[in-house]
């Protein structure tokens, strides 16, 4: 099934660039092979984003990642390669919004850590790195979804503040304040857990 990657944003350095112009043009024109190449190129980044955003609903990750890509492929002819946004930013924006829509629609009565996370937490079996990863995951799961989205786009996908604001439809000041509050919440959560 799925394997795990330890690299930034869920991708290795070789996968971090943008797709070449010719493939993009062919994909925008509807060429199936080029569209598949585009999915191939961005799938790890998008999948990682969706997986982190949906940390409280891991059963939806695969379906949402697919749905986000379908939206990307539908909207691709409208993407302007000469515009200010990189293709990766545009794609990840679609993915983030798709996740937020679902999270808001299917918000549980109370924010709870999924049993799968809690049950798997067995510090004695894990290395320090894995323990920290588990704690971060749990702390992220406790963040409100809008705040989590800001943190993930900033920390794992290197969106700048303007990009986050545009992606999530927020004011720049709101982005900064949410990021600041998220930092404090994460710091508190990581320091209070052993």
């Amino acid at each position, binding site marked *: 099934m*799925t394997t*795990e*990657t*330890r*690299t*930034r944003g869920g991708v290795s350095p070789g996968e*971090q*660039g943008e797709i070449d112009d010719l493939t993009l043009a062919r994909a925008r024109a*509807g060429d*199936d092979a080029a569209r*598949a190449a585009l*999915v191939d190129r961005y*799938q790890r*980044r998008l*999948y*990682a984003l969706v*997986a982190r955003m949906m940390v409280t609903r891991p059963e939806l990750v*695969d379906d949402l*990642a*697919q*749905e986000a*890509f*379908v*939206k990307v492929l*539908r*909207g*691709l*002819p*409208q993407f302007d390669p000469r*515009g*200010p*946004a*990189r293709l990766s*930013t*545009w794609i990840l*924006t*679609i993915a983030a*919004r798709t996740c937020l*829509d679902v999270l*808001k*629609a299917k918000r549980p009565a109370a924010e709870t850590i999924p049993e799968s996370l809690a049950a798997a937490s067995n510090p004695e079996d894990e290395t320090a790195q894995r323990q920290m*990863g588990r704690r*971060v*995951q749990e702390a992220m799961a406790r963040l409100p979804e809008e705040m989590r989205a800001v*943190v993930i786009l*900033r*920390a*794992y*996908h*290197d969106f700048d503040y*303007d*990009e986050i604001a*545009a*992606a999530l439809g927020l004011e720049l000041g709101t982005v900064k*304040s949410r*990021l*600041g509050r998220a*930092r404090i919440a*994460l710091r508190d959560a*990581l320091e209070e857990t052993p």
Partner: protein
Amino acid sequence: MSDVEKPDNGSDGFSDEELRRLDSWTAPAPPADFTARVMNRARAQAAPASASASASAKKEVRRPPMSRAERERRQRRRTALATVLGAVAVSGGGGFVAWQAVAAAGPSAVGGMTVYIGALAFGGILLIASLMGGHDHDADHHVGGDHDQLSEHDPHDHHVGHAARAALVLPFLSVRFWIFGLAFFGLTGVLLRGLGSTSPLLAAVVAAVVGLALGYAAARLFQKLARETVGELAPDGGQVGREGKLLLPVARGQRGKVRVIGAGGATTDLLAESDDERALPAGATVLIVAMRGTVAVVELSPAPSSPSPEQGDRT
């Protein structure tokens, strides 16, 4: 830490220590068959849009949706051009007859026919000019405003009555009406007066009636052709993937209205609905992701953002 070193950006950025912690949370990679499943899903979701086209379009579902629409649009354009060419030929013929009639009746007949000859010449010149200009988007479109599929396809909408009345009145506001009307008014007058078979009063009345009728018919014909061209875009899925601006807000269970700007600047208004949980306000830029009949399914457009100049390719 990660592949990318980031400085501590102050109170709202992440320090290296924080990033090191965050990066310890690994993300799952997509399954090996992920791309194939995405492509299958994209094809499956694209198919219903094509399948909702007309019966004839269903037979050609494998063809690119717009290619058929484009072909038919060109066919209609050829028909329209042929109509204009025919009108020009008739005008030219009429002018020749008039010239012959004047020559036969002598200079005294010219005074009585000046109005008709002038109308024929003016209308004929404008017809030729419109033909040379070759623009389909004439006054029929602009005077009437936008193509409003909302009023054409939603029987419950109060726009229908307005649209029906407007459709009757609009031809008289059309430049095309006046061009054809003048040309045929002049032609009829020249023929009747030049042949000397009717009284001046009767000739004037008949010429006016013929000019009005043919001008109106021509304007309505071109209006209908233009409307049919736009109307076929929806079932063919031609609007899917386009961006538009909401004229009326959309919420789950509440239809609104979206204005789409197509090629050449022509606008189309469509009923809009959304599966989005969020209410989409008027003025929002939306992406049409599907068509349900003539209703556009929209969602908030993922507007391109503006990366800062110092931001490189970091992702």
